[in-house]
């Protein structure tokens, strides 16, 4: 897990941060004292570019955390603004991003490789397989909620529900739902719904849309091929089988 990255690279000139060049960050730090720990990876901490909710959302959706470097969505920052590079701090800081893969990359010093890995946040890579035991949620809790149709691990803790009412599938199917204009995506369990009526009711309630306003929204979905379609155009069964995610859009005209 150790990286010789910081020590191996030549220090390029410090540049204003449009695209965060972690090589330069890393070397800026290694010029400072690494301390007696002699940790062999460059140590760095970064903060969020700004606190505008839209930018944060965009920041997150470009799959970098607030402490990652990457993403074109970040506001431009120069070194002067960066709160972390003050002279008093000549102790190493932790850059978590470089380390968290399950692949043994002990010998992999290739900087471009590292940068590529840094483009996603620490725990959200590899479909959540990145960090062991983080976030600290107990195993059985994860199994209750983290049930994605394509990746969720089958586990024997889920009950088969032989006496289940309505003959539900034993594995819940959660899909993402977005509403136009709302930054926060939701997740909805499809297996508890059996008709468009029921599904729409839940969605209206989820997004706080009153009965009066219902008509101004249309339900669309993205199918496995990536095409966006109107939900009402297809039978329920087809819809359920092919949908990947949902979106409520405002109907025009």
């Amino acid at each position, binding site marked *: 897990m150790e990286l010789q990255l910081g020590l191996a690279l030549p220090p390029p000139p410090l540049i204003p941060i449009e695209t965060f060049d972690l090589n330069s960050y890393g070397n800026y730090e290694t010029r400072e004292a690494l301390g007696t720990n002699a940790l062999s990876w460059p140590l760095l901490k970064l903060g969020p570019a700004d606190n505008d909710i839209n930018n944060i959302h965009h920041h997150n959706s470009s799959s970098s*955390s607030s*402490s990652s470097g990457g993403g074109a969505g970040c506001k431009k920052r120069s070194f002067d603004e960066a709160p972390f590079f003050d002279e008093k701090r000549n102790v190493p800081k*932790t850059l978590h991003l470089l380390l968290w893969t399950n692949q043994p990359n002990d010998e992999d010093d290739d900087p471009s490789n590292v940068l590529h890995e840094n483009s*996603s946040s620490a725990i959200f890579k590899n479909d959540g397989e990145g960090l062991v035991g983080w976030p*600290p949620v107990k195993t059985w809790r994860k199994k209750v*909620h983290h049930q994605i149709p394509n990746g969720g691990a089958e586990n024997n803790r889920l009950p088969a529900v*032989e006496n289940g009412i309505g003959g539900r599938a034993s594995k819940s199917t959660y899909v993402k739902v977005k509403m136009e204009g709302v930054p926060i995506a939701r997740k909805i*369990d499809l297996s508890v719904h*059996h008709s468009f009526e029921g599904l729409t009711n839940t969605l209206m309630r989820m997004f706080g849309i009153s009965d009066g306003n219902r008509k101004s929204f249309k339900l669309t979905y993205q199918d496995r091929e990536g095409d966006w379609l109107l939900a009402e155009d297809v039978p329920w069964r087809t819809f359920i089988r092919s949908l990947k995610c949902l979106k409520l859009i405002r109907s025009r005209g």
Partner: protein
Amino acid sequence: MPKRLASSLSDEVLEHVFSFIQSEKDRNVVSAVCKSWYEIERWCRRKIFVGNCYAVSPEMVIRRFPQVRSIELKGKPHFADFNLVPDGWGGYVLPWITEMAGAYPWLDEIRLKRMVVTDESLELIAKSFKDFKVLVLASCEGFSTDGLAAIAASCKNLRELDLRESEVDDSSVHWLSHFPETYTSMVSLNISCLGSGEVSFSALERLVSRCPNLRSLKLNRAVPLDKTANILRLAPQLVEFSACTYSAELRSDVFSNLAGAFSNCKELRSLSGFWDVVPDYLPAIYSVCSRLTSLNLSYATILSPDLIKLVSHCPSLQRLLVLDYIEDSGLEALASNCKDLQELRVFPSDPFDAEPNASLTEQGLVAVSLGCPKLQSVLYFCRRMSNAALVTIAQNRPNLNRFRLCIIEPNTADYLTGEPFDVGFGAIVEHCKDLIRLSLSGLLTDCVFEYIGKYAKKLEMLSVAFAGDSDLGLHHVLSGCESLRKLEIRDCPFGDKALLTNAAKLETMQSLWMSSCSVSFEACKLLSQKMPRLNVEVIDERGPPDSRPENCTVDKLYIYRSVAGPRFDMPPFVWTKDEDLALRLSP
């Protein structure tokens, strides 16, 4: 005067006086007063708590306390809950049961946490303790329904069977049916962890109907709605109940049956379960809501509007566990409705998703801290935080004694200022003088540890992840936190220096866990040599630690004090200084 008093009171009188002293800490103090008090006390101690099963051996416990009736043992370190401890590490209860079977025929209570329990152990319990009353297996594993069947069949006076969060293998035995028809003593039954095949409804109904003292019933997920209503009608005296699977669509007959059943339960104070609940069924519990003191909705995927409605019916709530679906708005409603709230736990509905799927921020926690004057215990998962919020919380809620904050993404900074959370957590430890448990997260430098070392004098358990800059951080904690018992650290740049400088401190603590830090095997060996009363375990599945390059750090390190010496049940991936542990016996 005290000296004369001690010798003038007869042993029987002293023993009688001691019988009023229940707390273990007080008992320990009593036994340290003088030799005669030590002797008297050890003969009349009935309850033992062993926080680390490897800190002492069963023989030692039995030798000192010959007449114990109740024992509580804990095995694996806390981080085992998050898969950080490899399978097979240890925590076997069988050696304890074997010894106690002979020495304590009157043992009637066994409480275990994070231990490996086998069917053999359960069968031995069933056979050896004639008046066995209480079995609690929390987060345990290694046993099946066969073992449960043995308990059910033999323990005529069993009052409590609690399998909370354990992993039970299904051996397809209808173990519930093994309770004889004459058995009527159940007071508390928690089988919420069992899978669907492991419980027979008819046996359950018969059991419930013949146990008039049943107070707490926590069923597993697969009990359908109509069965739930039936069971409630059989046990209207319940104080705690864990509800079951709710059906997909609202059926008015099922609803009214359920609502009626709940309305009979005048003693009900605690509800949990709610797996797959459909919000339309929630009003069925409204009749009991005003008396509820504890509500666990952390499996329920109900959203904020429905949660707000529910919470507004529960003014007596003292304890709430919930998912982040409650959102800031729900927590604001909680703050205005539930003035008796003492404990809040908010779990992430989707911990691994990069995008937040619920509008839950630091604002919710601030609202509850401001609105709930009795709030003492917090566990909060969120995706953003600010120092300002933490300071507000600290200043308004100095009565907090447990504060566990998990900002989901490691190294997240204050979203308003971009700064680390040193100041925020510093405020927490400074103002909350009775803080006994703290979990840190977010961007943190060595400064926060300086604050912790300086102010957190009553802190007993500290959890740290992705924090700190150098050994100084760890040094601050080890040198400053006088009451520290358990320290667990992962992914921090703490190394040999802090550890070796504070070696003596480690003997005053129960345990230290460090994983993915910067401790070398050399330091571990040195520590081990110099401190004979510490067990220093290097957990490393990659192979022998000394076969790797000099500067290679150990993967996981678990250090705990022990008077029992090195253990003999270590698996191959646990390394200690003793090379001659070729006589390691695998379990």
